[in-house]
């Protein structure tokens, strides 16, 4: 039962994804609309002083995302060290 529902869900999902990315529904690869990105490419050097436009996006235009990203790394590290901490039971056994 679980197998059958799983299979149906899988087929539906993959069909939708593939249908979604093929030409009539999706735009052509390599020809993106680019209003926002063109603005960034043109102004990044002047506004942030960066030659590396990606770095200016990562740390300036979308710096808050990067703060979130650094936070996630911090969260995961804290989580890993929290979960691998010596529990009391292990101290007794060792």
């Amino acid at each position, binding site marked *: 039962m679980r197998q059958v529902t799983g299979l149906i869900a899988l087929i539906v999902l993959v069909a939708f994804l593939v249908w979604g990315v093929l030409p009539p529904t999706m735009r052509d690869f390599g020809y993106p609309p680019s209003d926002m990105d063109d603005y960034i490419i043109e102004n990044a050097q002047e506004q942030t002083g960066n030659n590396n436009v990606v770095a200016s996006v990562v740390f300036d*235009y979308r710096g808050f995302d990067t703060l979130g990203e650094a936070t*996630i790394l911090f969260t995961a590290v804290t989580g890993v060290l929290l979960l691998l901490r010596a529990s009391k039971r292990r101290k007794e056994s060792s």
Partner: protein
Amino acid sequence: MASLIAQSPILIIAIPLAAAFLIPLIGMVSQKARNALVVVSLVFVAFLVFALARDISINGIHIYTLGATSPDLTIPTGFMVPVRIILEVDGMSVFFSIIWSIVSLAAAIYSLSHIASETGQTRFYTLLMLMVMGGFGLMYTGDLFNLFVFLEIASISGAALIAYRTKFADTQEGGFKYIVVSAIASLMVLFAIGLLYAQYNSLNIAYLAQVIQYTTLDKIALALFLIAFAMKTGMVPLHLWFPDAYSVAPASITGMLVITSHACMYAAFRICFTLYGGVINAPVVGWIIIAFGLLTMFVGVTMAVYQKDVMRFMSYHAISQLGYMWIGVGVGLAVLGNPQLLATFGRDAMSGGIFHILNHAMYKPLLFFTGGALFHYTGTRDLTKMGGLAHKMKWTTILYMIGTLSISGIPPLNGFSSKILIYESVYQFHPILTITGIIVSILTLASFTKAFHSAFMGAELPEYKRGKEVPRSMIIGMLILAAGIIFVTLFPSLVVDWAIHPAADALIDQSAYINAVTGAIP
């Protein structure tokens, strides 16, 4: 003061974050200082949230553009499209953040003694603050990718906190299920964001709402968004992980996880009403949400009746209660395109659903906290092994009764006022919804009475004769939530006028959200 309010959206996110980064350093020096930092920063954040809420009720939507030459400058001079990340706080966001600030404060105070005997407390509080920050970010952001980032922060810290008590095997499994579900859900959200970005080359919710055309890709993206958020909120049939994860976490974290699922619900509303509000085929999506909401309500409560584990029992009730909110807001969505029906009952149904979120966010964490208190006292979660606890745990008994009466919708408690609002309004949409709601309510009352009887009533069991009431900070944590319940009970109309209607109107009024960002076009 004025500049503090102008900066408050970012401060509400950044203060818990800075506190989280500081806690590992301070925790090495002094545990008391660390606990004080946690409580003080949460109190300050709660103060800021209330100040911001007051400001929004007067001045309307609050905008904060990160990194711009002025926080109000949403669109760069001489350009038409927002480039930077924008925080956008309207009635709905601030409503959720009020709930989040109260519950997280209560949970932090409750934790002070609930986990006092465990190791690794410094990291526990770090993760708690990160989770608080993730929740606020999720509610305040006006940018889709930013929403994904905060969703991940909230879910990763949540998973690590669920697995906090590493000496039990079930906590690890609960944490694993939670993180797997979250990872899949957030990747689906990311894919959907990619689909939108591919067509409109923007990530800003308000701008996207202005230009969206409801093409086939948009429909696929909407489906992905809804499946992902339904998965995160534990909507039937994607609920199987929900009790496993919620029942094993420390009780304070379970209380916060309830609000995280509300935050995901908020994200789903934001997507349906604000992002797709102008173009969505509202009746179809509305009916889908209502149908699954009904299923959620019914399956949740029927599963709950059999549970012997007190936390699992409450988790299934949490699933069932989420159904009420989906139905209330779903009815509002179904009549979104019809102003007349919306005025007669749609707005009331949405208000009912949102009011129920507020009430649920008060009584469900309270019930989980009392469950945690029972676990703290007895060392077991099995209801059949408990009994006669009312003799020793007077505070817990009273608080549990408040929660029970509230969740079952007994007048005059707050659960009643929101349920009656839902019943009256959805009856005009379709009577079957009201009838199911009442049946579910009765089943809820029955099962909670049974649990009350088996845990608190009867003769005092010999193994629980010794021992005292739970420590004071746990009671304070519970009392904060009980005070919230009593406040809403005493002044329901005040709360509806000041918090619920602005939130519902913020969802309905899509153009205000869009204009706040793009209105600056020269």
